[in-house]
C-alpha cells in the first residue's frame, strides 16, 4: 500500500479542522479504505475526544518518537468502523515536540500500511502547522464563510503552495443556507472567487455535529444529518468519485429575479 497523506489545515482556529479530520477518516474507512487519522496538534489534542477514543489511549505519537514504544503501538483501532485507526498526540507537551523531519518519517512509515493518512493540524502559520504538514502530499484547507477566516485561509494557501502540496482543496464549513439566501453570509461562490482554489465540499452548520461530538460518536454513520451527508460526499470526492455538490445555496440567489423577489417578499 502507498497511502495518500493529506493534511487538514486552516489559518484561523476553531473553523472545523478536527471535526473534518474525524468525519472524513470515518467516512473513508466506511467506504472500505484503511485509514489512520493522526493528531498533529501537540499540546491541544482534540481528535481523540471528537472520535470518542480518549479512554483507550496508551501510547502517544510522542512516545513513539521518544523510543518508548513502536509506532504501531500507538494505533487505536476504532471498534465501530472497520479499518479506522487514530494516532493520538501528547497533551502535556509543546508544539516543538515533533519536528518536520520526524513527521516526514512517521508519514512515510504509515504510508506503507494505509490507504489514507489524514493529519489534523493546529491552526496558524507557525512551526506547529509547518511540522504537521511536512509529511503530507496534499492539503485540505478548512474555512468558514467569514471575512477573518477566509483572509487567514488565503495566507495558509500561499504557504501550502510554497511547500509544494498538491492538490490543495477547500472545504467551506458551517454554511447557514438561510443567511446566504438573505445575502447575509458570504456564499461559496464568493469564497471561491476570492481564494481561487478548488472546492472539495461545503458543509452546513448543523447541530448534529455538536451532539455527535458530545457523545464521541462518528457523525457520518448517521444517514440523515446534512453535515453527515456533506462529509460523506467529500470523502467520496477525495477517493476520486464525481459527486455533485449539495444544494446549499438557492440557485437563483444571485439573479435579478431572486433579488426582486426577496426585496418584495423578504425571502
Amino acid at each position: 500500500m502507498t497511502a495518500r497523506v493529506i493534511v487538514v489545515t486552516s489559518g484561523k482556529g476553531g473553523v472545523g479542522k478536527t471535526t473534518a479530520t474525524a468525519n472524513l477518516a470515518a467516512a473513508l474507512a466506511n467506504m472500505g479504505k484503511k485509514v489512520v487519522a493522526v493528531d498533529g496538534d501537540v499540546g491541544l489534542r482534540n481528535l481523540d475526544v471528537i472520535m470518542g477514543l480518549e479512554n483507550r489511549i496508551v501510547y502517544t505519537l510522542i512516545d513513539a518518537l521518544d523510543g518508548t514504544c513502536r509506532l504501531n503501538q500507538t494505533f487505536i483501532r476504532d471498534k465501530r468502523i472497520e479499518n479506522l485507526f487514530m494516532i493520538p498526540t501528547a497533551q502535556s507537551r509543546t508544539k516543538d515536540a515533533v519536528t518536520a523531519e520526524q513527521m516526514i518519517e512517521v508519514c512515510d512509515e504509515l504510508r506503507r500500511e494505509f490507504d489514507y493518512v489524514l493529519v489534523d493540524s493546529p491552526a496558524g502559520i507557525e512551526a506547529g502547522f509547518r511540522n504537521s504538514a511536512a509529511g503530507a502530499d496534499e492539503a485540505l484547507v478548512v474555512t468558514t464563510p467569514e471575512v477573518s477566516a477566509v483572509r487567514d485561509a488565503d495566507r495558509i494557501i500561499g504557504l501550502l503552495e510554497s511547500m509544494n502540496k498538491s492538490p490543495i482543496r477547500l472545504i467551506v464549513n458551517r454554511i447557514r443556507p438561510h443567511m446566504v439566501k438573505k445575502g447575509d453570509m458570504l456564499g461559496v461562490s464568493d469564497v471561491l472567487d476570492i481564494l481561487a482554489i478548488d472546492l472539495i465540499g461545503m458543509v452546513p452548520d448543523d447541530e448534529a455535529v455538536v451532539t455527535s461530538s458530545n457523545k464521541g460518536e462518528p457523525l457520518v454513520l448517521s444517514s440523515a444529518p446534512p453535515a453527515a451527508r456533506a462529509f460523506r460526499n467529500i470523502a467520496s470526492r477525495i477517493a476520486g468519485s464525481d459527486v455533485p455538490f449539495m444544494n446549499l445555496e438557492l440557485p437563483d440567489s444571485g439573479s435579478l429575479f431572486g433579488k426582486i423577489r426577496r426585496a418584495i417578499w423578504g425571502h
Partner: protein
Amino acid sequence: MGFFTNLFGAHNSGKIAKNRLQIVLMHDRSDISPEMMENLRKDIIAVIKNYVEIDENRIELDLEREDSSVALVANIPVMTVRRQRRGNER
C-alpha cells in the same frame, strides 16, 4: 426605501463582506505593509509640497481594485499653488 436598498443589495452584509475581503486580500497579497503605505504617503507629501501647498490631514491614499487591476488612488486637497518662479531668475 427598504425596497431599493434590498434591490441593490446595499444592506446585504454578505456583499459587504465580499468587498471588504477583496480589499483586505489585495493588501495582504501585494505585500504593501501599513508601514510601507505610511512611508509612501510621507514621500508623496514631501514631493508634492515642492509645488503646491496641500492639506496633509485630508489626504486619502488607497489601493483600489477595478476588475483584476489594482490602482493606487490618491486624493490630495490643494490649498494654494506656489507662485511660479521664472526659469532664469536667480
